[in-house]
C-alpha cells in the first residue's frame, strides 16, 4: 500500500535533517536496510492507531524542540551508592574520560562507533536484527530510524556472571541536543548482567536497546528517567529470550514533556520469564506512554507487566499492553496490570490492554484501573497528625510500591524508593 503523501513528506523532511554515520561494511549494510524499512513505513503520524493517545509530532519533526538544560542541584545521581561500572555519554557521544575502565571479567564492552570499523560477529547478528523482528505485527518506525542513524551506543557481550552492574549515564551539555543511541546486549548461555540507565540525555532522545538473552541467562534492567522537565524521548527495548532465561526491566519516570517507552519481548525458549514494570510520577505538561508487546512463542513461559502512574495537574498517562500467545505456547502464564492514580480532575489516563491467544491451555489475566486517592486512608493519616501533602505522598508511594517491588535487587530498589521519596518531598517544598 502506498504511503499517504503527508507521511512521505514528513519522513523526507526528517531524513533531510539527519546525516548517515560512517561505518564499516556490515554496519553500513544494516543501516541501509533500516533506512529502506523506514522509507516503506514512514514516520508515525497522528492518524496511526498505535499513536492514538500520544502525538508523535515532537518526536518526528525535523529538528528537536528547544528544551532548557536541567540542573539537578545538590541531588546525587541515581545509583550513586551502588558499585557499578559507569559508561558515560555526553550529548550522545561516548566519553571515555568520564567513564570507568571498560574491562570486567566475563564481559566485553565496545562502542558502536568503534565496532563499526571492525567485524564483531556477535554484534553483527544482533544489530538491527531484533528491531526487525519487532517490526511486525506492529510497525515501529522510530526504531528503524534509530538503527539507520545511531552513530554511537554500547555493545556488550556477557559470557559469565558480571561482577557489577553496568550503568549507562546520559549527560547533557547542549540545549538543542537531538540524540540517537543504539545499544546491543548479548548474554551467552547462563550469563548474568544488570544494566542501569539514568541521566537527562537530550532535548530529544531516541534510544534502542536490543537484548538477546540466551538459554539460562538472566538480564536485569533498571532505568531512571527524570527529573528534566522538557525532555522528549522515544525508547525501544527489543528482547529475545531463550530457554529458562530471565528478562526483568523496570523504569521509573519523573517529569518530561513526552516519553514513549516501548518494550517488545519475544519468549522463544521454553520456561522463560519476562517482567516489565514501571512507576511514573507525572505533573503538569507531561505525557508518558508505556507501550508493551509480549509474544509467547514457547511452552510454560511467564510474563508479567506491572505499570503504575500517578498523575496530576493535566498530566496524561498512556498504557498500551499486549500479550500475544502463539499456537503451541501452551501453559503460558501471562499477567498484566496497569493502574493510574489521578490526583485531580485534570489528569487523564488511557489504557488499551490486549490479549490475543492462539493456544488453548494458557492462563492470562489483565486489569486496568484508574482512580482517585482513597479519602478514608487520607483522613486516617491526617487524623494521626500527618499533614495533607505528606499523607498524599505516603499513599502515592504505597500505590507505586507494587511496581517497585518488581525490582529484584534490594539495594537498587531502595535507591529508587529513596529517590521517589526525595522527589516527592521536594515537590512538597
Amino acid at each position, binding site marked *: 500500500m502506498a504511503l499517504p503523501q503527508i507521511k512521505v513528506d514528513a519522513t523526507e523532511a526528517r531524513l533531510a535533517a539527519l546525516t548517515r554515520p560512517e561505518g564499516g561494511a556490515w554496519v553500513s549494510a544494516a543501516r541501509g536496510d533500516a533506512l529502506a524499512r523506514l522509507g516503506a513505513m514512514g514516520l508515525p503520524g497522528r492518524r496511526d492507531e498505535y499513536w492514538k493517545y500520544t502525538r508523535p509530532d515532537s518526536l518526528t519533526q525535523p529538528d528537536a524542540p528547544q528544551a532548557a538544560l536541567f540542573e539537578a542541584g545538590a541531588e546525587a545521581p541515581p545509583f550513586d551508592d551502588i558499585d557499578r561500572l559507569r559508561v558515560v555519554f555526553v550529548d550522545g557521544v561516548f566519553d571515555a574520560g568520564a567513564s570507568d575502565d571498560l574491562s570486567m571479567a566475563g564481559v566485553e564492552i565496545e562502542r558502536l562507533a568503534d565496532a563499526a570499523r571492525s567485524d564483531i560477529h556477535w554484534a553483527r547478528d544482533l544489530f538491527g536484527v531484533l528491531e526487525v523482528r519487532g517490526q511486525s505485527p506492529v510497525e515501529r518506525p522510530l526504531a528503524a530510524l534509530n538503527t539507520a542513524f545511531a552513530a554511537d551506543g554500547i555493545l556488550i557481550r556477557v559470557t559469565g556472571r558480571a561482577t557489577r552492574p553496568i550503568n549507562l549515564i546520559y549527560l547533557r551539555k547542549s540545549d538543542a541536543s537531538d540524540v540517537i543511541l543504539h545499544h546491543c546486549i548479548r548474554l551467552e548461555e547462563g550469563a548474568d548482567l544488570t544494566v542501569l540507565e539514568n541521566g537527562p540525555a537530550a532535548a530529544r532522545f531516541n534510544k534502542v536497546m536490543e537484548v538477546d538473552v540466551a538459554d539460562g541467562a538472566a538480564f536485569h534492567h533498571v532505568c531512571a528517567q527524570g527529573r528534566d522537565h522538557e525532555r522528549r524521548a522515544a525508547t525501544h527495548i527489543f528482547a529475545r529470550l531463550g530457554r529458562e532465561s530471565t528478562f526483568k526491566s523496570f523504569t521509573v519516570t519523573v517529569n518530561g514533556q513526552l516519553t514513549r517507552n516501548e518494550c517488545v519481548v519475544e519468549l522463544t525458549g521454553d520456561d522463560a520469564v519476562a517482567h516489565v514494570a514501571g512507576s511514573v510520577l507525572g505533573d503538569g505538561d507531561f505525557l508518558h506512554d508505556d507501550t508493551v508487546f509480549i509474544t509467547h512463542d514457547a511452552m510454560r513461559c511467564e510474563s508479567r507487566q506491572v505499570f503504575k502512574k500517578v498523575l496530576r495537574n493535566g498530566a496524561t498517562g498512556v498504557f498500551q499492553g499486549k500479550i500475544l500467545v502463539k499456537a503451541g505456547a501452551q501453559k503460558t502464564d501471562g499477567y498484566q496490570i496497569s493502574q493510574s492514580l489521578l490526583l485531580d480532575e485534570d489528569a487523564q489516563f488511557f489504557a488499551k490492554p490486549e490479549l490475543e491467544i492462539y493456544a488453548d491451555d494458557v492462563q492470562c489475566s489483565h486489569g486496568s484501573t484508574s482512580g482517585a486517592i*482513597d*479519602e*478514608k*486512608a487520607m*483522613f*486516617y*493519616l*491526617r*487524623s*494521626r*497528625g*500527618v*499533614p*495533607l501533602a*505528606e*499523607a498524599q505522598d*505516603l*499513599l502515592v*508511594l*504505597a*500505590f507505586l*510500591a*507494587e511496581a517497585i517491588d518488581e525490582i529484584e535487587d534490594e539495594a537498587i530498589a531502595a535507591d529508587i524508593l529513596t529517590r521517589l521519596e526525595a522527589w516527592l518531598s521536594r515537590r512538597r517544598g
Partner: protein
Amino acid sequence: MLEINDLHVKLEEEDKTILKGVDLMIGPGEVHAIMGPNGSGKSTLSYVLSGRGGYEVTGGSATLDGVDLLGMEPEDRAAAGLFLAFQYPVEIPGVGNMTFLRTALNAQRKARGHEEMSAAEFLKLVRAKAKDLKIDADMLKRPVNVGFSGGEKKRNEILQMAMLEPKMCILDETDSGLDVDAMKLVSRGVNALRSEGRSFLVITHYQRLLDHIVPDVVHIMAAGRMIKSGGKDLALEVEQNGYADLLGEVA
C-alpha cells in the same frame, strides 16, 4: 478540656441532620462515656470532632482548651492533642505500620516545635509499647491494619494512642471485637495513660468495658442529642433495661 455547645451537624451531600444540639463538657483528667442506640450519632460526633469531611456544621461550637476545633484541619487537631480511636480502623496497603507511626509521631512533634525522634529512639519506644499491648514485631512490619484481625486493629489503635500521647482521647467502640483478655489488655493500656492532664471520651455499647475503664460521667445519646447524663450507675441501668425507658422519659 473539651467543650461542645449546642452542636448541629448535617450531611454535606444530603439534607439530613444527624447531630441536633449536642452539649458536652469534659474536664481535664476526666473520663466520660457515651452510650446510645445504633445510629444515634455517636460516631458522627467523633468524626466531626476530628475533622472528617462530608459533614457540615450548621450551628454550635466545639473547643479544645478554649481553641476552636471545628475550623482546623484534621492534622492540626491531632497536633493540638485530639485523638480518635476509630470504630473501623482503616487498612492502608503499601504503607508500613512502622513508617506510619513514625511519620505521624514526627509530624506532631514538628507541629509542636519539638525535634524529630531519632530512628533508634523511636524503635525502642514502639517496641516497649507494643509489648504492653501484646502486639508482635510482625504486626508492626505489616502494612497498616492490612490482614489484622478485628481485635488486632483495635489494639493497634491503642498503640497509636500510646505513642502519640494525646490529651483528649476519643475511643469509638474500641471494645467491640475484643475478646475478654484483649479487653483487659486494652483497658490496662488506657488506664496507664490516665492522668490529670488527659481526658477520655469512651463510646461503647457495653457496660462491661466501664468496669475496667471506670467513667466519671456517663451520657446517653439518642437521635443526635445527649438525653441523659449520670454517674457510672447509668450504664448499669442501660445494661439491665435497655434504652426504652430512657427514651420514654424524654419523649
